[in-house]
């Protein structure tokens, strides 16, 4: 991310060209917390997917797949609408697996 930003900064006016950034990474705005999931509580209702304003919730054929942290701004809407408490906000530094499941060394119990 740093090198992509560097490229734009070096151009007059911070012009961004195709190829500078493969996809938007608006998750850089996230401050402090990110969503995690306890898959044993998830019922694939996909309310999180419907409500996410940043298309950060991933699903495939109606099955919850995890979060895209490049896009997630940490707004907490997913954890608010989750009817089973499967989605919990955790500190940014908490280690997660690619789906958003808190790894064993994580500092906080999931769900």
């Amino acid at each position: 991310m740093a090198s992509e930003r560097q490229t734009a900064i070096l151009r007059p006016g911070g012009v961004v060209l195709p190829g500078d950034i493969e996809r938007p990474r608006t998750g850089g705005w996230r401050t402090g917390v990110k969503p995690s999931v306890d898959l044993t509580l998830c019922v694939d209702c996909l309310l999180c997917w419907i409500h996410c304003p940043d298309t950060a919730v991933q699903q495939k054929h109606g099955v919850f797949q995890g979060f895209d942290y490049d896009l997630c701004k940490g707004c907490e809407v997913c954890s608010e609408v989750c009817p089973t408490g499967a989605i919990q906000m955790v500190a940014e530094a908490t280690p997660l697996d690619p789906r958003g499941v808190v790894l064993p060394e994580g500092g906080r119990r999931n769900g």
Partner: protein
Amino acid sequence: MAKTMLGVEVLTGGEATAHAMRQIRPDVVPVYPITPQTPIIQTFSRFVADGKVDTVLLQVESEHSAMSAAVGAALAGGRTMTATASQGLALMVEIIYIAAGLRAPIVMAVGNRALSAPINIHGDHSDGMLARDSGAVQIFAENAQEAYDLMVMAPRVAEHPAVLLPVLVGQDGFSVTHSAENVALLRDEEVQDFVGPYEIPYPLLGERPSSQGLFAMPDAYYEIKVRQVQALEAAEQVFADVARAYALRFGRHLGAIDAYRMEDAERAIVLIGSTAGTAKDVVDELRERGEKVGLVVLRLFRPFPHKALADALGGVQRVAVLDRAAAPGSFPPLFADIRAGYSGSAELRSYVYGLGGRDTAPQDIEKVFAELQRPAHGGIRYLGLTGEDQHGES
């Protein structure tokens, strides 16, 4: 050199500027009329209407819109010029900052005029000073000839790859914009050749798509902004190079400063704009009487030519800095700049003059030179002010 001239015509500064614009043939001119810029745009509009130039003249609803359209046109890939004055420049200032930040090399003529209130249409530099920190290059002309020459030079400064910034070419309202004098025009094709084609690195309508004017977070804004500041600093050398190229080709050298009879001068005046003409006459007269006086006229105000100015001041003992603008609550802009960047031994004194078109007569300039022989007055002295409002003796 002489063969490149069309010969001398009697033109106002505004008309001469319009001729420069016609010869440069900008692609787009978004504009809104305001006194004393009107002779510029009225004359240029006539050139467009008569088919003498194929510029797209956009008549918009305000100066804010004019400058906004100019930013779009310049970044799209068209050579873009505009013109304004006073309240119009004030309204443009928000977008001039954006033009500088987006590195849009727009050339604009300014008929420098007082700011309201009280409302006043006459010349001073308050409007230009409002745009001082916008990031634009700012040049001031002494007379109609300089207004023309600097306008022809301006696109090469604005569009230089190391600069890519707006350039404001100022001329004093009425005393230059509306005063007819002899102006030597270049041939159309000479101007075209000198200015060259408009080329910017990332035109929006070019072959390569680009995103411009993007949001920059705290992790990027600072770096982009400092690069913009450095581009304005680079404009000092670019201006010098363009002035040299112009002189070599057309025989008129318009450097960042005009040092007039400064050799062995003990007392000097520094100022900007049309009052230089009056001051030069006074310097000639005093020199005939054996007084060692001189004049330094700043053409380039942003970036500020600190070194050139210090060199010109040389061994001068006392300097009066004449500002045609006030900076309420502190020292006026030109004085403040010189005080900040000058490390020579001369004593600097601050004068304000000519606000709202108040005439500055030869006697006023003589008075300044006379006061420079006396002990320092301290603070700011208001030249040409009537009655008891004037500080100090008169």
